[in-house]
């Protein structure tokens, strides 16, 4: 009986030894107050410097990004409630020109801001619709009204002159 008790105690002791065996004191004191502050300072510098490439690329982009003036359509070719697709600022950037029921011209890049599906103009509801996930955009300002999209469609600035509609610039974030 006594032997059994001793054996049990020894096993318990060994278990305790195993428990503290994997503790490494060096690792334990590695992250002290000083190390924590140094790591925080390092993170501050890294995050601060991470902003600079964006500034440089933005500067390079705005240097060669002269405003393009592109003719889109004749006013008489587009009836009220009709739309037409075009590309702006390059042909690879799809866009949609709409003549609204108020007889106003509006244009947006028509890649849905959710998952880049094409956005169409729905004449009956006077709304821009992304059929992939039922995203609805306001035709007057390009802002999302319902569905998954959270951001507005990039707005293309227009100019109507001599019976023609021109695209003269673009605002990615607006309103």
């Amino acid at each position, binding site marked *: 009986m006594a032997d059994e008790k001793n054996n049990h105690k020894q096993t318990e002791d060994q278990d305790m030894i195993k428990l503290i065996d994997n503790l490494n004191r060096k690792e334990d004191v590695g992250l002290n107050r*000083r190390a924590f*502050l140094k790591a*925080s*300072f390092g*993170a*501050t*510098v890294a*995050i*601060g*410097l*991470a*902003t*600079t490439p*964006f*500034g440089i*690329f*933005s*500067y390079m*982009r*705005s240097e060669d990004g002269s405003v393009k003036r592109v003719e889109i359509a004749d006013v008489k070719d587009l009836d009220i409630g009709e739309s037409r697709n075009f590309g702006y600022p390059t042909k690879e950037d799809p866009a949609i020109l709409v003549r609204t029921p108020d007889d106003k011209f509006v244009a947006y890049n028509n890649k849905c801001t959710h998952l880049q599906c094409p956005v169409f103009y729905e004449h009956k509801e006077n709304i821009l619709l992304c059929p992939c996930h039922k995203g609805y955009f306001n035709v007057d300002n390009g802002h999302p009204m319902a569905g998954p999209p959270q951001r507005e469609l990039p707005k293309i600035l227009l100019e109507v002159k001599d019976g023609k509609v021109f695209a003269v610039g*673009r605002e*990615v*974030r607006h309103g």
Partner: protein
Amino acid sequence: MGKKRVAFFSIFLFLAINVVSLSNVIEGYYGEESGRVYTFMSAAIVSTLFAAIAFFIWRKEEYKK
């Protein structure tokens, strides 16, 4: 509050400023708002400089004999 303590806590303040600035810079970059990019990039750089000054002040005080 001592000089060392102020320097210690200000580094975390500058860290928070830089996190906010980086998020704004990224949003500005993809939204093609160069004004926003430059503003927050300048804020981040200034904040990083102040953080470096604060760090050196703290280090001087911390390791003083």
